[in-house]
């Protein structure tokens, strides 16, 4: 067992966990933060993307014990004081989601892109989203939403 202390969405959390616990398991099964989704078992779909110390990572491919002392932001922690993040607003405005399953990872990945690049081109957005698979939208409105958010941030 490992004692893991992490700051999740601004709250300090400490848990005794099995060594093999993945960050996604800690979030979903232990902390009931089920907004982070599991869509594959080969680390490709990106439904599980969260931020660890400000960078987007795949929480299904990360041991919780490995990030002891880190700050984690999940989709549940993106809105502030009940107001959605500009990226969330843009996805809503431009219909960047349909079934909603890939959405949390997609949004978290897109937010990280804008941290690295203020005004990405369409191609840069498409390239960045390589690690996030969506089956519903054909990506068009996702790309448009990221552009929209960039213009608002």
């Amino acid at each position, binding site marked *: 067992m*490992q004692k893991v202390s992490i700051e999740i969405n601004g709250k300090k959390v400490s848990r005794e966990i*099995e*060594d*093999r616990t*993945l960050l996604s398991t800690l979030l979903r099964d232990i902390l009931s933060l089920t907004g982070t989704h599991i869509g594959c*078992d*080969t*680390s*490709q779909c*990106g439904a599980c*993307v969260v931020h660890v110390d400000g*960078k*987007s*990572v*795949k929480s*299904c*491919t*990360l*041991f919780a*014990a*490995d990030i*002891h002392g880190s700050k984690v932001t999940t989709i549940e922690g993106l809105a502030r004081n009940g107001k959605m993040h500009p990226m969330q607003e843009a996805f809503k405005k431009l219909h960047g989601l349909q079934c909603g399953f890939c959405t949390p990872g997609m949004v978290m*990945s897109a937010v*990280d*892109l804008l941290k690295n690049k203020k005004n990405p081109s369409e191609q840069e957005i498409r390239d*960045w989203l*390589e*690690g*996030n698979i969506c089956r519903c939208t054909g990506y068009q409105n996702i790309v448009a939403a990221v552009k929209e958010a960039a213009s608002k941030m």
Partner: protein
Amino acid sequence: MKGFNFHSVKNVKEAKKLASGKSAFLAGGMTTIPAMKLRLALYSDIIDIKNIKDLSGIKVSSKSLRIGATTKHAEVASSKEVKRAISSLAHLADGIGDPQVRNRGTIGGSIANNDPAADYPSACLALNAIIHTSDRKIGADKFFKGMFETALKKGELIQTVEFQVPDKSCYVKFPNPASRYAIVGVYVAKYKKEVNVAVTGVESVVFRCKKIESALKSNFSSSALDSVKISSSGFNSDIHASSDYRAHLIKVLAKKAVAGCK
């Protein structure tokens, strides 16, 4: 996933002490963890080496570029030093996996894993890399032994990868459309006295393509490769690419790489 003991270590000595036949060092975990999840790999102990301070970082001199084993792909891709010294290497790192993989995956992990379709091994071969381990220095030409097999001994830990700065170089990859690993990747590096051409994705392990090298040595231009014939014998063949197609791509990509050298 099967159970194991997780250890986070602060120095190389501690890491080596914990290592055993059933243990694995964990850097980014981008290959190790999926394999464990699918129960394809079982370990009794996972030794996390990311907190060993000396293992991360980028250092440049006029002749060499040294990258610490736990340096992440994203760090290499965005490093001004790397771009200035060997821009093709930054480009290679920028094409590994996806942004989230690049935020976690490390050069040492990639090389130690030695996936036959990984990108970094081709850079090591083409750029005359020396792999500095906890125990010794190993030349890249002696390091990559076979499929997922390296010269590393039990408990031996990669510390730094030292690349020889070329006059010019270029890496061109034709990615597998599904996994985005290399179906074929060709790394061309030109030095004063030699031209190195390393090929990944094609055989069980990365190799140097002597035919292309000798053609380029006398005439470093794409057209020098027009008459080169690449035999597909022994090449990988799978649903994504037959051995013949891989042979064809080697030549096509090598020409692009030569043209793209800078």
